[in-house]
């Protein structure tokens, strides 16, 4: 056993990280733990910039994808590592009705709203404050931003624990009724970039997923049983991407929300990803009802940290959230935050080796 550099989890103070084209200065903070893990977080989009974690041999490598500099984060379209809001995932036609009032949102993807629209939380400069062993990320989203009603105040507490888990505790309040659905969008590659995610094995505790139309809006709940979508026993993504399934053709891979059973509200382990080569293992624990699996099939134009571009399937996302387009469904009320109420979410990613 080597002696850890940092006996317990700590958070650094702000470090300058450059500036955007409009002159705004951006910063980064570093969280560390007793395993010598290191997580870098920026105020730009509240983004998880890097996560250095040990492999089976104890060697550290960055297990999340990222861009080289702040401007790339501002320009790129992959939502890399970002905090997502006010509505994660899609809303059909960028419109919904609430309490008898119709709302028109930014339609930034195929005529639908995606990830809060082009002015979403991923583009915002968050206020970041060290908070004990973690960081508090704070954002005010004004009434009408992206077309959403009400002034929304959001905070996310991020902390890296000695057991290798990076927790995100969300809280939000709004002065008008508004749909709220928050998530985080890191792309994981547990090999630290050595090989792609098709060699990773995924276990996902869900019996149903949401089938989608060509615009990736859910159309029906389908059973995973016996299909490419069945990860109730761990399976390599590489083989599942080659199983014949019309839904895989629609999305060019996996870009689907899984329905996580009937105990939402309770944090439970819902997914695990293993990388045989490095021995790294990622667990996802959340109290959310849905988990979006995205296998990174559209990464081809996304700049990497070295001046080149990522390739499809270089990273995978597991985004804990409410259901896509839920605000236009029978269970819409569950995703409406009303004045006086508090939106809460607990999600954590845990990394270890096996």
């Amino acid at each position, binding site marked *: 056993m080597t002696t850890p550099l940092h006996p317990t989890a700590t958070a650094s103070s702000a470090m300058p990280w450059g500036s955007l084209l409009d002159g705004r200065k951006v910063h980064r903070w570093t969280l560390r733990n007793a395993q010598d893990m290191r997580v870098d977080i920026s105020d730009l989009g509240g983004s998880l910039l890097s996560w250095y974690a040990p492999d089976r041999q104890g060697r550290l490598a960055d297990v999340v994808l990222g861009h080289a500099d702040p401007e790339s984060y501002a320009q790129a379209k992959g939502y890399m590592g970002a905090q997502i809001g006010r509505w994660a995932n899609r809303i059909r036609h960028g419109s919904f009705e609430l309490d008898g009032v119709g709302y028109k949102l930014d339609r930034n993807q195929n005529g639908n709203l995606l990830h809060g629209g082009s002015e979403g939380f991923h583009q915002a400069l968050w206020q970041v404050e060290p908070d004990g062993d973690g960081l508090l990320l704070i954002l005010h989203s004004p009434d009408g931003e992206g077309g959403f009603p009400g002034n929304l105040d959001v905070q996310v507490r991020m902390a890296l624990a000695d057991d290798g888990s990076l927790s995100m505790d969300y809280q939000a309040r709004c002065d008008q009724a508004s749909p709220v659905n928050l998530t985080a969008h890191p792309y994981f590659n547990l090999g630290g970039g050595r090989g792609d995610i098709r060699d990773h094995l995924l276990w996902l505790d869900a019996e149903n997923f949401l089938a989608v139309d060509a615009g990736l809006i859910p159309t029906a709940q389908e059973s995973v*049983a016996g299909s490419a979508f069945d990860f109730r026993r761990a399976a390599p993504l590489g083989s599942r991407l080659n199983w*014949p399934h019309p839904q895989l053709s629609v999305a060019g891979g996996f870009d689907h929300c899984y329905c996580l059973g009937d105990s939402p509200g309770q944090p439970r*382990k819902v997914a695990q990803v293993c990388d045989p*080569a490095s021995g790294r293992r990622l667990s996802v624990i959340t109290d959310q009802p849905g988990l979006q699996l995205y296998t990174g099939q559209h990464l081809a134009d996304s700049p990497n940290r070295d001046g080149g571009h990522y390739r499809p399937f270089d990273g995978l996302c597991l985004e804990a959230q409410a259901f896509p387009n839920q605000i236009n469904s029978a269970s819409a009320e569950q995703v409406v935050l009303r004045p006086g109420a508090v939106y809460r979410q607990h999600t954590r990613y845990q990394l270890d080796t096996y």
Partner: protein
Amino acid sequence: MESTHSPHRIALLFNANKGFDREVIAGIGQYLNSTRVEWDLFLEEDFRSRVQGIERWRGDGIIADFDDPQVAQALAASKLPVVAVGGSYRDASLYPAHIPYIATDNAKVVQLGYRHLIDQGLPRFAYYGLPPAPGNAWAAERETTFIELLQTDGMEVTVYRGLPTSAGGWDNSVEQLIEWLQGLPKPVGILCVTDARARQLVQACLLARIAVPEQVAVVGIDNDPMAQLLTRVPLTSVMQGTEEMGRTAAHLLHQMLRGADHSATRVVVPPAGINVQASSRHQPLRSPLVMRARHYIRQYGCLGIKTEQVADYVGVSRTALEEHFRRELKQTVHQALLQHKLETARELLAHSALPLADIAVRCGFTSLQYMYAVFRREFDITPKQFQAQHRSAASGNPP
């Protein structure tokens, strides 16, 4: 829907004596259980007799191991829906035409084993394969991949195929194997084409008093429980994606029975993991004394030996041995012995069904209480708790 018809009659043409085939069959079973699809499965004890009469068999579909050329030939013109299972080929023209094929990714299997040996800090590598024979085209695929990987990395390539497993007699083949091993510059990491070959290699090393893994680190392929059981030094082994292959084959056949055309479908399944054990846990050591001592501890550490006996084996005084251990490993001989016992205990707790008291005895602890005390002190957890954690983790999937 399916239950309104009588169940489909499906033949599984596999050699159930092979671990690989058994695991593929297990995957087929998993698929059927997960879907409640009902098939009447036909699985012969002597699968070759089934192959010979297969064109007269009145059934609905076949899943078969195409690594066997006789099977591949017999099914080439089958009128029934057939799904083939077998090894991957670098040359795509070697796949059977017009038959869906589920392949174990031989290239990635070899890559995983090779990278693991690199990760252990080994400076050179060799490959122990098989002489070409009908039915082992996969062995040649693996060998070629290994050679290409080493050439890409600018390393010298050493390949030994040995004698066919049955010919020439055991003594003769071990003698030749030892001769090859003795001629290799060391330390060296050797990837073996199967666990059966790896087991033979470890045995030859022990006979020739070559320390595993200090001088020769060994990785096998298959993660075969039988080979594990029969190897004195626990074997590191690459696990193929066999169960997923079975699930995939069953899924394709299931769809074909409903009319889907998968004649051009090929699914290459990556390995499921690598089971890292002592045979490859190479740590570069400088002192040959320490190397010999650890070799002895690995073989007899669980028989209740003490520092004195280790020193006797190495042929130096206790004080001298302690000095070497302190300098090289920053621990005492006693600590190294204890560490070995605890590692063995952890292994048995996680992967065997033995009662705790038996595990204590097997690992050379004087009593169950003593194992509890040491275990708690070192890992801050009781053996029982550790066992419970691993049982739930090992039952295929997380809790």
